[in-house]
């Protein structure tokens, strides 16, 4: 039974290294889809994001979501890595990798994990603004709930 590889970490990640971890020595994986989420500078107004998380629960939720995706899309490999702390524009925030025999399952698996990770994994973003003000906590988006709800089974 495939179990997800989950990391909540300060450091950056390397996509090829993380993919190799899932595919090394395997001859049955035909499709690998990765999603990486990066920090945007919002047209120059953002200096940095501060990522807070709930240690322990963050990993547990990511593991739960990853396992759901593995079962639902028959994935052969799944990695989810979420960074915390101060993240600068252009830097990575999150990585999801899904491996499957064929491409649609890999696409759906990675997309599914991102939709649930955004709405269920306990992470919060605070903005540091370029004008020196503290900025505020990013608001949750209804669009993220809608993206998650599209996976509800009819």
């Amino acid at each position, binding site marked *: 039974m495939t179990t997800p590889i989950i990391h909540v970490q300060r450091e950056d990640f390397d996509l090829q290294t993380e993919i190799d971890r899932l595919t090394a020595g395997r001859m049955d994986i035909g499709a690998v889809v990765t999603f990486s*989420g990066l920090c945007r500078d919002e047209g120059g107004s953002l200096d940095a994001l501060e*990522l*807070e*998380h*709930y240690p*322990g*629960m963050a990993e*547990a*939720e990511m593991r739960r979501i990853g396992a759901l995706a593995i079962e639902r899309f028959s994935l052969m490999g799944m990695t989810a890595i*979420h960074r915390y702390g101060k993240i600068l524009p252009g830097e990575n*925030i*999150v990585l999801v990798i899904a491996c499957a025999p064929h491409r649609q399952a890999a696409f759906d698996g990675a997309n599914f994990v*991102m939709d649930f*990770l*955004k*709405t*269920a*994994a*306990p*992470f*919060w*973003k*605070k903005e540091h603004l370029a004008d020196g003000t503290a900025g*505020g*906590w*990013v*608001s*949750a988006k209804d669009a*993220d709930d809608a993206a998650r709800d599209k996976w509800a089974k009819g």
Partner: protein
Amino acid sequence: MKVRIVYFAWVRERIDKPEEELDLPETVVTAGDLLLHLKTLGDGYEAALQYPDVIRVAVNQEHVDHDEPIAGAREIGIFPPMTGG
């Protein structure tokens, strides 16, 4: 019931502490009861929990709805909607 409460993001900032141990009265049965109880503990709590509907609660690091009981909780997390990813 003694329980460890942990706060995150702007809930933590407004209450002005990351965690605390509280002895809850027996009238606090559900997660929703807990939020209403905490609101009575001071201005910071009042500011943090002004709109309890938007607040998320986790019991022993698992999400719970506001109408779920918190009996048996060792750790309760209280935080705003998540914005990771």
